[in-house]
Structures are given as structure tokens and as C-alpha cells.
């Protein structure tokens, strides 16, 4: 019998701890598939964040390094500067990357650090129990914005991809979503291009993945996908912001 689908070698057999309906599992899988398809698993060192993906080091089937909250880009920098020929990636959530680790991600991008960041944006702090994130939408309720995010009080959500794409060192920047099969395929293609940009030495690459948090949003998984489409996508438009391949074509 012909095998039409099998689990990627890029993931271990460990059971993940993610909540039912959470899209981290999909993002892990497409990232792992890309590493396997590029044939670089044996030369990859990943850096896990603090937050929901804190245990990612148990799930990716490559050497892994756990970092402190927000510091993954700095840890990845240390690894990459010693092993310029290895593939180095960080996997970070929005609290980790856009709040406590804002300096680290901005400067890794500014340096053109040849690493790849998978940035999972679900507009809320998941692991710590649903507090407001830098990406929480105006009016969105969270445990620390119980009346809805008031922009007069705590400011506006950060559009990370737009911000980083202003930096010359950021070679590849794309925002994707994993809300339906077509978008999952696009997300995987973007992740592949980001890793290729690293392998070709083009500079820093980041793929922002709009993701759901049914548990902390208090929604059914299917309603979460709908909420993502209706609320997150208008504020965080999907699309490519920087692509070295496109930029070379345009020259």
C-alpha cells in the first residue's frame, strides 16, 4: 500500500501539551516539515521561548536551547555567530517577542542576524493565563484588561511585521495565518522562504503567524478561527513585507 502521508521526521514522538484547538501544533508541524524538506535537521539548532511554546525543545527533533523570556534572539545570535553554517531558529510568542523581548528581536533584525524567527501571534498571553499582550486588540478583553483594552490607558497593539520590515537587516518578513488549509499552505511556503533566506546568507527572517487561543479567548476552536478572521486579520493584514528574492527581481 502506498504511503500518502506520514509524520515529519522534524518532530519527536513526544505528546504536546497544547490546548485543544490551539494552532501551535500546526505551526510546529509545518516548521518541522520545512526543516526536513530542506534536509537541514541534523544541522539545525532551535531556540525555544518562555510562554506556551516553552516546551518546544521537547517537540522539535533537532538540538534545542531553552531561552529566558524574550531573549531567544540573543541566544540564537550566540549560537549563530559560533556556527555560521548551521541553521538557527527561534520560536516565540507575542508576549515573549513583542513585549519583554522587543529589544532583542529589533536588534537581531537590525544586525541582519542570519537566523529565522517563527513568531506566533495570538493577541494574548496564553501560558500565564490570558493577560493582555502587546498585540491584544483595542477593546479586546483579557484578564489584565477586563473592560477591554483601552488605548488611552495602555496604548496600541504593535504590528511587529510592519515595524521590523523598516529595518534594512530584516531580509524576509511575512505575515501569515493558519486559519484554513489554504492559509496553512501559504504559511508553510513563507516559513520555507525565510529559512532559505537564512541558508543563502541574506539576513534576518521572520514569519508572523496569526494563531488562536480558544482557552484564553473563551471561544470554541471553530469560533476562534472565525474571531481571528474577523478581528485579527483586519488589524494585522496578511502579506509579504520583505523578500530578498522579490527585491532582487525588482533591481
Amino acid at each position, binding site marked *: 500500500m502506498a504511503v500518502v502521508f506520514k509524520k515529519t521526521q522534524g518532530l*519527536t514522538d513526544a505528546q504536546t501539551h497544547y490546548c485543544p484547538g490551539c494552532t501551535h501544533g500546526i505551526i510546529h508541524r509545518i516548521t518541522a516539515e520545512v526543516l526536513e524538506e530542506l534536509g537541514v*535537521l*541534523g*544541522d*539545525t*539548532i532551535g*531556540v525555544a521561548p518562555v510562554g506556551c511554546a*516553552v*516546551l518546544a*525543545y*521537547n517537540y*522539535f*527533533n*533537532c*538540538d*534545542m*536551547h*531553552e*531561552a*529566558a523570556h524574550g*531573549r531567544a534572539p*540573543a*541566544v*540564537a*545570535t*550566540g*549560537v549563530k*555567530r*559560533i*556556527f555560521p553554517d*548551521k541553521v538557527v531558529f527561534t520560536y516565540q510568542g507575542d508576549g515573549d517577542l513583542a513585549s519583554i523581548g522587543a*529589544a*532583542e528581536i*529589533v*536588534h537581531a533584525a537590525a544586525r541582519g542576524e542570519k537566523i529565522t524567527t517563527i513568531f506566533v501571534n495570538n493577541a494574548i498571553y496564553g501560558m500565564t493565563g490570558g493577560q493582555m499582550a502587546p498585540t491584544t486588540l483595542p477593546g479586546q478583553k483579557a484578564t489584565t484588561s477586563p473592560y477591554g483594552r483601552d488605548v488611552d490607558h495602555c496604548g496600541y497593539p504593535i504590528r511587529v511585521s510592519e515595524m521590523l520590515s523598516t529595518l534594512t537587516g530584516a531580509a524576509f518578513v511575512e505575515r501569515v495565518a493558519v486559519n484554513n488549509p489554504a492559509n496553512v499552505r501559504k504559511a508553510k511556503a513563507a516559513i520555507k522562504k525565510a529559512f532559505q533566506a537564512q541558508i543563502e546568507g541574506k539576513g534576518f527572517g521572520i514569519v508572523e503567524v496569526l494563531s488562536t487561543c480558544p482557552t484564553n479567548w473563551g471561544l470554541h476552536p471553530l469560533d476562534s478561527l472565525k474571531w481571528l478572521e474577523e478581528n485579527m486579520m483586519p488589524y494585522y493584514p496578511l502579506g509579504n513585507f520583505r523578500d530578498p528574492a522579490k527585491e532582487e527581481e525588482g533591481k
Partner: protein
Amino acid sequence: MAKILMKGNEAVAKAAIEAGCRYFFGYPITPQNEIPEYMAKELPKIGGVFLQAESEVSAINMIYGGAGTGARVMTSSSSPGIALKQEGITYIAGAELPCVIVNMMRGGPGLGGIQPSQADYFMSTRGGGNGDYRTPVFAPASIQEAVDMTMEAFDVADYYRTPVMVVADGMIGQMMEPVEFKTPKKRELPAKDWATTGTKGERKPNIINSLFLDPQELEDHNIKLDAKYAQIEKNEVQYEMYKAEDAELVFVAYGTTSRIVKNVVEELRAEGVKAGLIRPKTIWPFPFKAFDEIPAAKNLLTVEMSMGQMIEDVKMASNGRWPVSFYGRVGGMIPTPQGIKGKALEVIGGAK
């Protein structure tokens, strides 16, 4: 190799390179800037990497990543910068990675000043960051010693898989002395088979981590670390006894301060006072056993460039055997021989 005249900071940087350090991540802060500057100039010439991070927090996390690869890595800073690095240091200790951290101390708290100080004794010897851990801390009193200790620090780090600190002060960093770069006594070092070097598809993934969600696993990890620290306390204590064997007044001082105290010991001896000095060369582990070697002692006098931090270890070492007094200057004020001697005579008078 002939002696060469070098500034303390540059000598420390050269010593690290001699010891095989090829990767340095740092952030500027006075009075240690000649270390990153030297690294920026010299490392690229020998295939190494100097990188200036955007902050001390980032620099120590680059060290964390770098140490995970198994390479010899180092960072340096001064007091407020080391305070920021404490986050990374506890992770490095928790994940059991080797690296060397140099602190050229300045006065605090807060921004303090830029003059020499020894007020980071607690921060260096008590863990500094969160959780139960210790870092071996070398405290050089001369530039030669700073060189020798920096070299040894890399071996101690690799041997025990731990961050190691070299803690001096702005005086050691900024002054010049002749130094010799001797090949240090080599230890047999364990293989770094835990490092994240890429599996090449030939082994199970290596994971660098300090997270233990299972309480029993975390307790086991802490017990394991504690056993390692007990080994370090047993094997790595270094100290100097300076005319202490027959001394009735025993000074305790380390680093720059100990050099001034040695002059006072000479002056007091010339005046018929039996004075001596215990000089910790490692401030953690602290040389408690040195205090068993002072049979004639009647008084201990701790001298520090702080308001009194090491004195707590001295009191523990004394354990009620002797009265322990203190003399300190802070803010970048250097203790003078006259000031120390005045306190010494007061202590002896009080003991009569």
C-alpha cells in the same frame, strides 16, 4: 616569555584569548571598556568573533547561546551591568554551561560612580540571580594574578560546567603592571558531548535547559547542583597567608584592598605589633579553613571597599572565636594606610 607592561583590562582580555576564548559578547560600561575594545581589535584577526550587544541582558544571553555550543565564551562588565547580567547567569548556572564573566567593580547602588569598589561581594558570592546556585569567584590583587586567574577560570568553568566570575575593581582594570602570560597548569577536562552542535542525524537531540516543571525533578537537579558546589568548595579554595601565622591582629582583605593592607602590616610590624593578613583569592568558595591557621590571633579586622559585606563570611569563619572589626571606604574612596592603621590601633587598644 618576557614580561610586558599592560593595562589590567587589556591583560585580562589577552589572557582570555591565550586560554582559548574566541567569542566575546559585551556591552560598554566604565571602567572595563578596554576589555571589549581589545577583543574587538584582536578576535577578528584569529578567526574569532567580537559582537557588541544592544544591552547587558542581551550580551549575557548571547553568552548563554554561545556556551551551549561548547565554545569558550566570555563577557565582561562593571557593577550595574553585572546586575543586569544576573538574569542570564542564573540560566547558565541552571543549564550547567561553562563561561567566564569579568566584573571590574565600581561603586553603587544604582548608577553609583565609576571609581573602584568592592561592593558587589554579596552579588557575586550569594548567587546574584534567582534560585539556589553559586558561582566560583576569583578575586585578583594584581594584574599578573588577573591574567593567571582569567586563564584558570576557563578551565574551572569547563571542569565543573559552571559560569565562573573574575571579580576585580576599577583600580585593577585601569592601572598598568608588567605581566607574563604563562601556560596554565592543564586540567583533564570532560568532553562537551552535551553541546548543541547539530545532531548530524547521528545522535539524539541535545537540549540546553533550566526548566524542570516536575517538582521532584527540580529538587533532584538542585541536589545535583549542590553536590557540585560542595566539590568546588572542597577543591577550589585559594588564599594567601601573609605573616598571619604568628599574628595577633589578623586583617582579612582581598583584591586591591589587600595590597594596601600589606603595607599596613609592614608598618605595624615595624612598630612591634604582630599583624598579619588572610587574603581570599577566591571569595566563593571562601577560605574558611584559613582561619584555623592563626593560632596567635586575638583580633580580626576586615577591610573592604564597601560598607561591610565580606565581614559576614569573616564572622562565620570566626564563629565567635575572635572579635571581628571592620574598616571600609566606599564611593570610590580608596582606604588609606593611615586610615586602616588608625582603625587597627583602635581595635588593639580596645582589646587590651
